[in-house]
């Protein structure tokens, strides 16, 4: 009897574990199948065409791709220096009394749902952008800034963790040689934790590019490529969130699935690079 239960338990757990792989494969297959119409009709033009006009059955995804890339780039440019600053502050500068409460609150802020960052952006940040730059305030720039604030806690927390992996003895040796804090940070901590730090930035990038709710409120879903960052724009997830329930033709529907597939492939690739190339060592933990 025990042998039977034992076998049953082992096989059940194995089956469920394998099912997870199958679900992921299934997601890719389903998205691919549903984008077939659009892939066959538009081919490669889908990602180079700038015109997205559902009423004319014309679907070019370049504005959405452009929006995803630019808003994520903006977010990274703003968040990376801030995250490094916060991480240095938390791991090296803050007095012991501040370290843990500030650190924990940053981690807790990383748990706040992104929809709330979006809501804050819409009600409090859009007016500020409107006052400074004119226009409606709903723009690529707003999206980039809100996105940067949303990924900041996550980025700062993982960067700090990466910095904290530096053995104390290395740091102490450098201090003993008369190094200043900055010397220790740039010559000991950053070289030691480099892979971890870069890995966490890329991981944050992977999350930012797929983020929907923080930007949907403040981007405007306008399919136009404009060099002016204060103009409304769109990104892949914003387009999906706004238009999925409106898709009334097969091509429209299929184009949105191709967008989803594109987004999944892009973020899957970015996250894999972060995980496999830079964060490999963490596997031991």
């Amino acid at each position: 009897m025990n042998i039977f239960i034992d076998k049953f338990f082992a096989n059940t757990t194995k089956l469920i574990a394998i099912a997870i792989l199958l679900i992921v494969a299934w997601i890719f297959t389903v998205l691919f199948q549903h984008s077939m119409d659009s892939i066959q009709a538009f081919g490669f033009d889908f990602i180079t065409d700038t015109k997205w006009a559902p009423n004319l059955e014309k679907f070019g995804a370049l504005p959405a791709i452009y929006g995803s890339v630019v808003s994520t780039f903006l977010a990274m440019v703003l968040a990376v220096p801030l995250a490094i600053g916060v991480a240095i502050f938390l791991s090296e500068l803050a007095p012991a009394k501040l370290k843990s409460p500030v650190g924990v609150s940053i981690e807790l802020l990383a748990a706040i749902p992104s929809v709330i960052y979006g809501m804050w952006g819409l009600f409090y940040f859009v007016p500020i952008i409107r006052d400074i730059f004119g226009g409606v305030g709903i723009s690529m720039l707003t999206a980039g800034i809100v996105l940067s604030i949303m990924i900041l806690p996550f980025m700062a927390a993982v960067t700090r963790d990466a910095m904290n992996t530096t053995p104390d003895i290395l740091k102490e040796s450098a201090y003993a040689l008369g190094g200043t804090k900055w010397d220790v940070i740039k010559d000991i901590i950053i070289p030691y934790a480099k892979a971890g730090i870069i890995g966490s930035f890329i991981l944050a990038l992977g999350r930012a590019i797929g983020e929907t709710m923080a930007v949907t409120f403040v981007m405007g879903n306008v399919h136009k490529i404009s060099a002016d960052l204060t103009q409304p724009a769109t990104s892949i997830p914003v387009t999906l969130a706004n238009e999925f329930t409106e898709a009334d033709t097969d091509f429209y529907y299929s184009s949105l699935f191709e967008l989803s597939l594109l987004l999944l492939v892009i973020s899957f690739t970015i996250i894999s690079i972060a995980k496999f190339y830079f964060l490999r060592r963490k596997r031991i933990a």
Partner: protein
Amino acid sequence: MTHTKKRIILNNIVMILSTLSAVIGIGFLFWILSVLVINGIDALSMTIFTEEGAPPGYEESGLKHALIGQLMIVGVATFVGVPLGILAGTYLSEYGQKSKLSETIRDISDIMMSAPSIVIGAFVYAVVVAPMGHFSGWAGSIALTIIMLPIILRTTDDMLQLVPSTLREAAFALSAPKYKVITQVVYCGAKAGILTGILLGVARVAGETAPLLFTSFNDNFLNTDMNEPVASLTVTMYNYATSPYEDWQKLGWAAAFILSMFILSLNIIGRLFIMNKKGK
């Protein structure tokens, strides 16, 4: 200027910049938090919990429909996702260990944890909503289950691996079969950690909006039939916040406040479990 002096000055500049960026970053985050708390508390009232959605301008409007809907959608996802995740995690840690299959599952789950959740929504739309012909609470729960699975799986895996192998060996020496060793010894040793994983997993999916937009959709009234569109706090928040009506926006803030407090408390409780464990 001597070299030492230069270094000290440079050091001070960097330290000031770093503290400044910490102040800016933390300042922004506290701005958001205070906005959330002030608007949320301002919007809270008893009718929030007792009344359903109403057209804008109605005095008696609340979030009862969204609160109950949220509980149902997340509840079902938890009910399905937690046992499946724990069992899969058990396989990785206890049976598969460092095998190729286990490592692949670990890698893929790690990636799925950060994958865009809106894509999961699109997938569930294609395989559940479209064949059924209508949005449903079930579809929302399925989307959340898929998001929750890798989180529970990875934390269970990590936590079980922390249980010392001497404990397992001691149980085996008493001729206990493997499933008994796992369910009665290993699980007990990793109880606090697994519980924390569950709490964090639930907290994570409770805040998801994107995968619910086109699965469970929304409903302005109380609906307990999971076969129909069901309101959730997050989607309600999105719809109300983007509406032009001030009283709806206010309800949106109330929803945001309630949801955030729920998620923050789950996170804090989860942390306390882990801390207690470390203290022992």
